[in-house]
């Protein structure tokens, strides 16, 4: 069966690189499933869950904002942060959320810092969601 070459790249390194069967991306207009031979597409990604199916096994990666470049044979995901489900540290993520929320509440941030804090809050929230859903479901 044809496979897709998936690469998940962040400014801090390569999170995932390998051949997969399907990918589900959190696009700006909703989730989109990508199969081999998908038409060429460039899309914006929002913080959410990226699902990888590889040899019948499904893995989930929590990602931040970014872009994806899709061709018939490859998917390139460029995002500002990506953590595989098994690597998510729920406690650390919760603490990060609390820190970010406190910072945002204090209203002392502006411009760049505000944006960066909001983005990191969104990333941490996604991580927690991924972890909790897994446990409950």
């Amino acid at each position, binding site marked *: 069966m044809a496979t897709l070459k998936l690469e998940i790249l962040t400014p*801090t390194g390569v999170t995932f690189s390998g051949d997969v069967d399907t990918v589900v991306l959190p*696009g700006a207009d909703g989730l989109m499933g990508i199969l081999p031979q998908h038409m*060429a597409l460039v*899309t*914006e990604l929002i913080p959410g869950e990226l699902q990888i199916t590889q040899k019948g096994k499904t893995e989930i990666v929590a990602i931040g904002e970014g*872009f994806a*470049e899709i*061709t018939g044979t490859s998917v*390139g995901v460029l995002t500002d942060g990506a953590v595989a489900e098994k690597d998510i540290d729920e406690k650390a993520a919760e603490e990060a959320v609390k820190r970010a929320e406190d910072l945002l509440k204090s209203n002392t941030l502006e411009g*760049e810092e505000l944006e960066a804090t909001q983005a990191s809050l969104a990333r941490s929230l996604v991580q927690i969601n991924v972890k909790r859903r897994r446990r409950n479901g």
Partner: protein
Amino acid sequence: MANLRDIRRRIKSVKNTAQITKAMQMVAATKMRRAQQAAVTLRPYASRLDDLAAHLFANIGKDEISHPLLKKRTTSGKNAVVLITSDKGLCGPLNTNLLRDVLKNDSPNNVYITVGRKGRQAIARMKKNLLADFELSDSPTFVESKVVSKFLIKQFEENAFDTVEIYYNRFVNTLSQIPVRYPLVPIGAEVLEVAKALGEAQRAEHLDTKPGAIPAVTYNFEPDADLLLGKLLPHYVHLELYEKVLEARASEHSARMVAMKSATDNAKQLVKDLTLEYNKARQASITNEILEISSAAAMMAQ
């Protein structure tokens, strides 16, 4: 014959200097490792973004794109030059080489934006048109460098200049850093060619994956082309600048470490030479003394 005490004093002072340069070398080595790591880990992401942009431009007609960052224009007649230098000196010929390149392409139409104290001082000293200056921390974050690129985009949109180019020292390895001129805006074929050329050179050094040929396909955009480019292009500018800043930092710390190492080596050699001279002088004075005593004794015996 040099005075013994003078030589002793010089040896002591050279030894002190060697100790200081040795310490600076150690500090630079640590910072260098961190900066190199940061620059190298960003490369896959940056080159993939370059690829993405290159694919887009190869595949969509220029007329379809209406984003200002892509358009060539000559409305203001000014060119922005972003000069990324170090804040501190003692890093060998790094900043000098870069400045020489900048001045080669100097024109009265250039406005300068400096990142780093050394660049600002040089540009101000030569009474060039300095538009803004920024100073970033030792290990700059994306958020920090974004302040600079945000400023660039804003000024560009307000028509303060038509083009933006970046001068920085590209990090090749610890011993070699090359001053590079990188045209950033308008983002277009030329920019991407340069980026690709640099990207491939970098990839050849660090990864063995060969970049595939540009696929001849038409891309769809989601949500739509304008919205997507509106997000993608500023992100591209932010990231390019961030990448250049990291490269410049890695170059700076490498150059400083090498400069400090050769300073330490020189000082050690100097101490060796001075010690030899000191011993010679000491021996000479002892010989003299013996000569005096023995000639005095010979006189007495007579």
